[in-house]
C-alpha cells in the first residue's frame, strides 16, 4: 500500500510550511511528502527551487503513467472506433459499429451474468474463509507461525501455474484426484470436475479460494493486530461474551481492512481470465465465459481488435463505476 497522508496531517503540514503563498495544492503535497530532504526557503538557481525539485520527483511516475497507461488507453479508444483486424491493421474509422455490434454477440449477456455470479460467489466464500483463518492464527502461540506460513503458501504461486496444476489434478484422463476418490471408495465412477457447468464453476472457485485465502488472511491479520488490546480488555471487564466482542469490536475496527480486501477481491474476480482460460476455456458449452475472455476471443480468435477494444472500454467504464459506488458505500458505512 502507498503511504497515505490523512487530512489531519495535511492541515498540520500547511500550518508549519514557511512559504505557502504561490504554490498549487499539488506541488505543496509533493513538497510535503519530501519535506525532510528540501533545503531552506526558496532562493538560488531555478533548478534548486522547490517547484523544480517537485516536478523532478514527479517526472518518473508521470512518464510511466503516460507511456503505459494514458497512451495505451487513447490507442484503445481509437481502436474501438475503427475497423481494425488483427492481421491487416487499421482500416479507418467505422464508429459506432464496434459498439453496436457488441449486443449482437450471443455470448455477451451470458458472459456478464456469469462474471457477476462468479464474483459474488468468490468474494463471499473467499473473504469468509480468509477472516476465519485470520481469527484462527491471530494470537501468537507456539506453532502458529507454521500455520500462517502454510495458509499463505499457495499465494506465492503464480495464478497460471496454479491453474495448470489444478488442471492436471482435475483431469479425468491423467489426473490423480478422481482416481484417489475412487480408491477411497467415496465415488463409484470417475469424477468429472470440469465436465458440467456447475462442477466447472465450483472447481474453479475451489482453486481460487485455495490460492488466495492465505493472501487475504494476511491483510485481515494485519488489521486484526492493529486493534488495541485495551479495547478487548475493557469489553471483557464489561462482561461481553466472545460473539459480542466479535460483533461490536472486531468487525467495526476491522472495517478498513475488510473494505480493502472486498475491493481487491471484487475487482480481481470481475477481471477473471487466467483460471478459466486454462481450466475450462469457457466450457463446457460456453457456460464459463467471463467478460475478459470475451475480449480475448474477439481479439485473438476472431482477430478483430476493434470490437475487442470497444468491449474493453465498456468494461473499464463499468469497473470505474462499480469502484466509485463501492467507495461511496463504504464511506457511508464508515461515517454511520
Amino acid at each position: 500500500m502507498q503511504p497515505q497522508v490523512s487530512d489531519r496531517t495535511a492541515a498540520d503540514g500547511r500550518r508549519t510550511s514557511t512559504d505557502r503563498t504561490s504554490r498549487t495544492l499539488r506541488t505543496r503535497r509533493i513538497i510535503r511528502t519530501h519535506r525532510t530532504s528540501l533545503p531552506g526557503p526558496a532562493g538560488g538557481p531555478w533548478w534548486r527551487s522547490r517547484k523544480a525539485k517537485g516536478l523532478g520527483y514527479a517526472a518518473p511516475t508521470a512518464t510511466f503513467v503516460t507511456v503505459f497507461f494514458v497512451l495505451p488507453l487513447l490507442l484503445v479508444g481509437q481502436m474501438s472506433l475503427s475497423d481494425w483486424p488483427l492481421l491487416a491493421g487499421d482500416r479507418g474509422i467505422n464508429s459506432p459499429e464496434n459498439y453496436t455490434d457488441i449486443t449482437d454477440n450471443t455470448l455477451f449477456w451470458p458472459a456478464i451474468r456469469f462474471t457477476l455470479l462468479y464474483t459474488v460467489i468468490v468474494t463471499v466464500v473467499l473473504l469468509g474463509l480468509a477472516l476465519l483463518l485470520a481469527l484462527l492464527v491471530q494470537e501468537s502461540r507456539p506453532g502458529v507461525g507454521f500455520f500462517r506460513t502454510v495458509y499463505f503458501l499457495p499465494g506465492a504461486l503464480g495464478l497460471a501455474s496454479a491453474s495448470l496444476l489444478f488442471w492436471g489434478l482435475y483431469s479425468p484422463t491423467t489426473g490423480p484426484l478422481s482416481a484417489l476418490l475412487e480408491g477411497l471408495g467415496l465415488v463409484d465412477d470417475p469424477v468429472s470436475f470440469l465436465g458440467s457447468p456447475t462442477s466447472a464453476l465450483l472447481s474453479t472457485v475451489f482453486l481460487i479460494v485455495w490460492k488466495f485465502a492465505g493472501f487475504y488472511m494476511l491483510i485481515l491479520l494485519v488489521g486484526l493486530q492493529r486493534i488495541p488490546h485495551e479495547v478487548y480488555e475493557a469489553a471483557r471487564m464489561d462482561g461481553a461474551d466472545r460473539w459480542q466482542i466479535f460483533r461490536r469490536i472486531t468487525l467495526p475496527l476491522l472495517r478498513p481492512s475488510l473494505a480493502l480486501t472486498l475491493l481487491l477481491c471484487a475487482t480481481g474476480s470481475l477481471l477473471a481470465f487466467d483460471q478459466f482460460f486454462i481450466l475450462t476455456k469457457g466450457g463446457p458449452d460456453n457456460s464459463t465465459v467471463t467478460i475478459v475472455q470475451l475480449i480475448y476471443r474477439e481479439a485473438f480468435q476472431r482477430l478483430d481488435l476493434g470490437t475487442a477494444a470497444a468491449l474493453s472500454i465498456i468494461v473499464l467504464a463499468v469497473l470505474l463505476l462499480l469502484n466509485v459506488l463501492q467507495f461511496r458505500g463504504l464511506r457511508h458505512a464508515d461515517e454511520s
Partner: protein
Amino acid sequence: MGRTAGPRGNAARLGVVTLALIAATGLATACGAGDDGGGGGGGGGGAATADGVDDGTKLTMWTRAATRPQSEALVKAYNASHKNRIELTVIPTDDYQAKVGAAAGSRDLPDLFASDVVFVPNYTSSGLFADLTERVDALPFADDLAQSHIKAGTHEGKKYVVPHTLDLSVLFYNKELYKRAKLDPEKPPATLGEWDEQARAVDALGGGVNGTFFGGNCGGCGVFTWWPSIWAAGEDVLNKDGTKADLSSDTAKKVYETYRGWVKDDIVAPGAREETGTTWTGVFPKGKTGVMPMPSTTLGLMPKDLDLGVAPIPGPDGGKSTFVGGDAIGVSATSESADQAWNFLAWSLGEKAQVDVVAAHKDVVARTDLASNKHSDADPRLVTINELVEHGRTPYALKFGQTFNDPNGPWLTLMRNAVFDDGSSLDKDNEAVTASLAD
C-alpha cells in the same frame, strides 16, 4: 499506515485498478501498432533460384507444439549439414494463432513460420507470407508436392506456402485388445457400423478397457476426426469458397448418431466430454482403448510394445477418407533473408530430407512420388497412410479458426449438441456455423 479511506486513497486505488485493467486489455494494443500489416514487400530481392542461398545466415522459425517432433528433426538435420542456422521456437498449439496475429501486427514475424494448414488461407489473404510462386515452380518435383497444401496456400493465383508436415487422421486399433475380444486383428472396420460393433466388443472386456475415445470439447478434433466419415460417403461439408456449411446432412447425422450411441452406452473412455484437445492423443498409447481416430504424426511416438494397426476412417456405408492436415510453411513477408529461408524449404522437400528424416520418423512424406520408399516398404502401416493422401481433403475457409477451432465458436456447440445432447438443434447450429463462415 493510516486509514485506507479518504479521497486520495480512492484516486490512487482507482488508478491501480485501471492500470490492472489496461494491463489485461493492453494485450490488444501491444500488437496493434505499426502501419498496414499487409502488403507483400520484403523478401530480399535477388534472382529466385531453386536452391536459395546458404551463406551462414541466422534464421528464425516458428512452429506449433502439435508438430514439434517433425519440425525439430528437419531443423536439426538442416543445421547439421548447412552453413545457415535455424533457430526454432515451438509455441503451444492453442496460442499459435494469437501469437502469429500479434507478431504480424507489430511486424515481428520470424523468417519462416509454419501454420496449421487450415489457417493458411486467412494468412495468405492478409499478406503475411512472401510470394513463392517462381521458386516453387522452379522445383523439379513441383507437381509431386501434396496438392491439398499447395491449394490451401494459393491466393489469387500466387503460391505462398509449401507442405511442411503432413498429419492425416487415421484409425488406430489395438490388436492385442482385438484378440482378447475375439475380433480378427487383421480386419479393422470398413464401415461406421463395423467400427461401432468392434468398439463395443472391445468395451465389453471391462476392467478399465474402453471401446473408443474422442475429444468432445475440442472443435479441431471434431473437424479432424469426424469429417472424414462424411467425406468417405462422397459428400462435402463446406462449399467451395468456405462460406457455407452443410453439417446437418443425413450422412452427417448418421455420424453424430454413432458417436452419441458411444456416449450413451459409455463405450468411450472417461474424459471425452471435457477433453479440450490437450491430452486426446494420450489416451490410446495407454493400451486400454480399442479403436479410435488418431493423427498419423503420433505413429512414430507410440510405445514400442503396443501392437497397433492402422486403418482409414470409414463412412456410414464404407468408403475411406482422411483430413489432410498438418503444417504448411512459408517465408514471412517481412523477412530480410528470403533466399536463405528458401534454401531450407527447398532442402526440406528434397529426396534426402523427405526419406531420411521424414519417412524415417514414420511420418507422411510431402511428395507423392516418394510415397513408397525404403522406410514405408518396411512398415505396411505407413503405406496405408501414404496412400490415403489422395483420398483425403483439406477444407478451405477464410474464417476457419474462429468458426471451427474457437472453443467458444459455433462448431463446438454443434458438436456437443449433436453428441452429448439429442441433436435436435442441428439445423439451427448449422446455420450458426454458416453465419460465422460468412461473417
